[in-house]
């Protein structure tokens, strides 16, 4: 089967007059149609810029320096602004970390969802309003008719994230980018929202690029995982295989740093492993020797 999204040797960085500063080094991975692909890594490892590159919203001075992002066989990096905009919301959509600020405070949520249908499917407002209520029902918002008339500040974080998901999935995109969609939510709400994303995407055959630093969430959600560190994809595997048998030292460190129930007794460990250096100044790193500041982990 042909991959839905194919990222090939993506290099990305800050570019100013005369100097460039690489942030991603030759990142390559594929996402199959309908697959949930997880991207893990610590803060600053390049997960979010990768997703912004896919959706075409890198802001200057961030710039793609090389590589290809093929989506359904078309290189997104070669598209014109207008063509790329037509992709967003229609073929590729995104859900953010912050549900509290991701909705326009001055419009009812019904209107905001309806706008997706008006914008992308040329529906009139009354039709779109109906579809918006249905969309709210599909993300299991109780009482969708009444809720459609609410303003964002009248809803809880979990509900707002459901509304965001409803907007993102309104036009049945092929790919949903979920950038830490549950980080800002309570644990119980988090579980519901994750379940919702998984079920809705399975129903519609939507592939998900799921970004998180929470290995527990990744394990629960994803079929395959890529581990990012310092702008490189250091390891990629099926989720089960990766957790059972991490090959890269950094992945091992990351898994070791994960607190587990009863870990002291069962695993005979006294302390959690800590990864003690923060990501170094990247200008000194090259793709080949990026791991050197953490040779201590490798040495263990």
């Amino acid at each position, binding site marked *: 089967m042909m991959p839905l999204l194919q990222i090939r040797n993506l290099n990305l960085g800050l570019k100013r007059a005369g100097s460039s500063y690489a942030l991603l080094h030759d990142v390559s991975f594929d996402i199959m149609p309908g697959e949930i692909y997880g991207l893990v890594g610590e803060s600053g490892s390049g997960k979010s810029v990768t997703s912004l590159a896919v959706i075409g919203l890198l802001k200057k001075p961030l710039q793609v320096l090389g590589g290809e992002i093929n989506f359904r066989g078309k290189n997104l990096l070669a598209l014109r602004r207008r063509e790329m*905009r037509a992709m967003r919301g229609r073929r590729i959509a995104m859900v953010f970390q912050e549900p509290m600020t991701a909705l326009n405070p*001055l419009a009812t949520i019904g209107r905001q969802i309806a706008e997706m249908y008006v914008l992308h499917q040329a529906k009139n407002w009354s039709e779109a309003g109906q579809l918006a209520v249905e969309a709210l029902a599909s993300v299991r918002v109780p009482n969708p008719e009444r809720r459609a008339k609410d303003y964002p*500040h009248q809803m809880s974080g979990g509900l707002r994230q459901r509304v965001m998901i409803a907007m993102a999935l309104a036009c049945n995109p092929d790919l949903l980018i979920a950038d830490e969609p549950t980080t800002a939510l309570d644990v119980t709400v988090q579980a519901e929202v994750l379940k919702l994303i998984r079920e809705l995407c399975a129903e519609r055959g939507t592939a998900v690029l799921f970004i998180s630093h929470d290995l527990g969430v990744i394990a629960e959600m994803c079929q395959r995982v890529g581990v990012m560190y310092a702008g490189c994809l250091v390891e990629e595997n099926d989720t089960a295989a990766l957790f059972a048998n991490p090959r890269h030292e950094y992945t091992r460190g990351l898994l070791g740093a994960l607190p587990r129930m009863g870990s002291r007794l069962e695993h005979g460990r006294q302390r959690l492993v800590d990864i003690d250096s923060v990501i170094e100044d990247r200008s000194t790193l090259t793709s080949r020797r990026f791991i050197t500041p953490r040779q201590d982990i490798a040495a263990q």
Partner: protein
Amino acid sequence: MKFGFNFILGATLTTLVILGGLLAPWLANFDPVFDADLMNAELPPDWTFWFGTDAQGRDVYSRILYGAQISLTVGIVSQVINTFIGVALGMSAAYWGGWWDDLVNGLTNVMLAIPSLIFALAVMAVLGPGLASLLIALGLTNWSWTCRIARSSTLSLKTLGYVQAAQTLGYGDVRIMFTQILPNIMGPVLVMATLGMGSAVLSEAALSFLGLGIQPPFPSWGSMLTDARQLIQLAPWTAIFPGLAIFLAVLGFNLLGDGLRDILDPHMRTRLS
């Protein structure tokens, strides 16, 4: 929905002033220009001349009603032009940034550096006196604060989640500006616009005072005040009533703007209801 006290008072005052202007031909007891009678000059208020008469014996009450037409036209039209220019420039500058932002910023700074009345005087000198040139002069010279406010509000909104979310959902730049940004900067812009209406009324008075505004004998509140300047001790009513009219109109505009801001804010909306 319940309205705040400010809104009710402001809307009442504004409506009164607008109605006074619109219905002037029916409400006025005398013709504001031609019923001059030097035998009746400088009479204090009585049952015939409700607000007294001026130096030419014209009825101050009738002149205030007709003056409302001029003052309101100047206040509203020039402020609509200002707000339009200011918001368009400020919002697009902040949203697109780059050279366009630099250009708009430079222009705004130049406008702020020149006292707007002096600039308006220059424009009036080129266009010649009259209502139309008054509107153009005041409409082109007072947008800099609106522009500043629109720009800074847009800058702070631009980084917010919902503007970025709208981009990821495929909204175009213009749609984002109109649906996501404009409604959210309307509060401060409206307040600026209503404050500006008050100051436009005052600028009109100043320009008329300098002989570049409404030409005598046609009444505007500003020119009435100017005429009253010499009579302020002999016939204080010639100054008090136009001054009161300006005061009430400006107060009405400001309270209306305040009230509108409260209504446009959905947080306030649930609190009130």
